[in-house]
């Protein structure tokens, strides 16, 4: 039964395609309908007929009395797109078409904020993209203003307003000098979406260590490690201590714990001890004791 119906509808649609854009002489349809709204179709003539409405993802079939108005309630059609109307009555077939357009009022935002974590102080480092949808998940293609707000933990706000084009809008923001979780909000027509952007410290800056004798060893300890904006570099960051002596070398990759890194290395007279983190070099100590 179903394949038969599909075949019938397909045949009707194919037969009617060349005339799809034409308004049938005995069929009056609205030019466009907002997704989810009620609408009606007026037919002319007398007798009984069958009305088909075929569109993207929707198919409606009604037995109608020709010459009367057929009403469709709210929510009958909600997928935006171009719809074909076919009225089959007696030996004749009438056809017409209309558009179901997205509701003008945004109901949902898909908000993509990238990256979710970045270093402080990066110009245009944060990107926010918004896709505006109506209540039926149709992309709202009409130009819609979207406001973007990025608020850092200190309460400083960056604002941008962008009008959507073909349903989407995007902007770029700077990461600020202060580490912490920024709140990134996009708003359109009373609907909003929020994301959290983690601003993390940059590379260590002014990396410095101190050394002191501890028995047969040198105890090496960094000063609290901070980036160039003064943010504390997070624990777990690797600090590499390298001691060079008598043609040999000792190395330790030590993680920061409670803001500092410390290790004990063998004491060798005349040894040179350097410190680094990633590609950043720190100070160097010559051990003469």
């Amino acid at each position, binding site marked *: 039964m179903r394949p038969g119906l599909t075949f019938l509808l397909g045949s009707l649609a194919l037969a009617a395609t060349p005339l799809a854009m034409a308004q049938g002489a005995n069929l009056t349809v609205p030019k466009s309908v907002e997704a989810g709204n009620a609408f009606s179709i007026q037919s002319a003539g007398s007798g009984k007929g069958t009305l088909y409405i075929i569109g993207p993802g929707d198919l409606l079939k009604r037995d109608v009395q020709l010459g009367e108005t057929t009403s469709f309630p709210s929510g009958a059609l909600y997928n935006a797109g171009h719809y074909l109307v076919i009225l089959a009555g007696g030996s004749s077939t009438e056809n017409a078409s209309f558009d179901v357009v997205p509701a003008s009022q945004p109901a949902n935002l*898909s*908000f*993509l*904020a990238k*990256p*979710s*974590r970045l270093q402080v102080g990066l110009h245009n480092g944060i990107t926010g993209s918004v*896709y505006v949808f109506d209540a039926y998940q149709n992309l709202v293609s009409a130009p819609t203003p979207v406001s973007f707000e990025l608020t850092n933990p200190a309460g400083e706000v960056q604002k941008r307003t962008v009008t959507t084009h073909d349903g989407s809008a995007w902007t770029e923001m700077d990461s600020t000098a202060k580490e912490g979780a920024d709140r990134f909000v996009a708003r359109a027509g009373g609907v909003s*979406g929020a*994301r*959290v952007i*983690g601003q*993390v*410290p940059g*590379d*260590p800056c002014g990396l410095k260590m101190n050394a002191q004798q501890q028995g047969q060893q040198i105890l090496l300890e960094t000063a609290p490690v901070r980036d160039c904006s003064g943010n504390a*570099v*997070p*624990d*777990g*960051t*690797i*600090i590499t201590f390298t001691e060079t002596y008598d*043609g*040999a*070398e*000792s*190395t*330790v*990759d*030590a*993680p920061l*714990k*409670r803001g500092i890194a410390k*290790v*004990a*290395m*063998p004491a060798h007279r005349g040894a040179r001890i350097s410190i680094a*983190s*990633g*590609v*950043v070099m720190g100070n160097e100590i010559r051990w003469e004791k």
Partner: protein
Amino acid sequence: MSKGLLLAVSLGAATVALVAMGTMWPIPAAAAYAGGGSLLRSSSTPEAAVQNLGDEIRMNAWQKAYDSLANKAQFTEPQFVHDLTGTYPSLRTYATLENFDVQPLHASTDEAEMRMNLHWSSVVGAFTSTRDVHVVRNGDRWEAEWPIEKEPVLPPQVIPVNYLRWDVIYRGAGDDWGAQDVEAPHVRIVDMHPVQRAEGVVILGELLNEDVVPAYVSVTATLQSKSGATIETEGSFDRISHILLPKQVTPFFINFPDRTLSEVGSVRMTPLSQLVPASADPVIEIQDERLNPAPDASLTGQLSNQSGQVVNVAHVLATFYDKNGQVVWVADQYIDRALLPQTPVPFSIHIPEDLARKVSTERTVTSSYSSGGTQ
């Protein structure tokens, strides 16, 4: 058809004949492995005594091996077994002795020195350990004295550790496609250098985790011809430290066997990173790193586990630079013994002879694997 039948009959007859011969006159090794005999020969010479010991070790016949030793009063059988397989689980525990060779170093009428090269096979490749065995005459027999290396016994103690660890909560399967997920760690290739070697093209380089979170990393390289066509894609496999803590740098080594640099127009590098749970411990100090010149050029040193946790398998990766700071080689070694806290374990990484003269400096990193977690 008749020729085929003749061939089948001939093969069947030959098979039956060979099975019968093998059953009636088996080779000694087959008989030994079938439990019907012994591979061991009379220990009438120092070489035979050491060969017998090696065969017993290979067959895991620990009691026989221990009983054959001249100096067994100096240690117990479990200590002997632990010397060979490790007290704590390590690469050695899961390795098998593939074969061994014996070289005489010195011999007199009553004693001899023999060098045993034990070739082990493991999941990360083959490794060799060398023992110099003293052999003594006992009547008409020779007996080996095992050079026991007792693992140090750590005194009971408490080592306080500020346990630093990252855990990750990923997005849920039901989340909207626009919902945020945790950002993959930001990693960067800070150096890359293709090298032509006799065995093919090698890509050497270094990768930096420039993020504040740990990363599981790998690198793939794609060789492209001068016309832009893809020649081959390879990954770094295990010649890289896969877990990189924040601001940590690892070398990588990608091998393209049987390729020549002349056919390569460009190389496309793809670093991959994934946010993973990780621990900042244990910390391993690399002590007394020395570049030893040719012949037998090598990098030697010692690993010292500064944490209280036993490290079961350690992997040492060395990057060698020329005087201009250019990477000229990357080599590695797995340590076959567990790293006990505060107990140095030596390592030795071979440097190819033709590159040894170019090497000016080096940089060594370690990655470690402990049962119940990795770092």
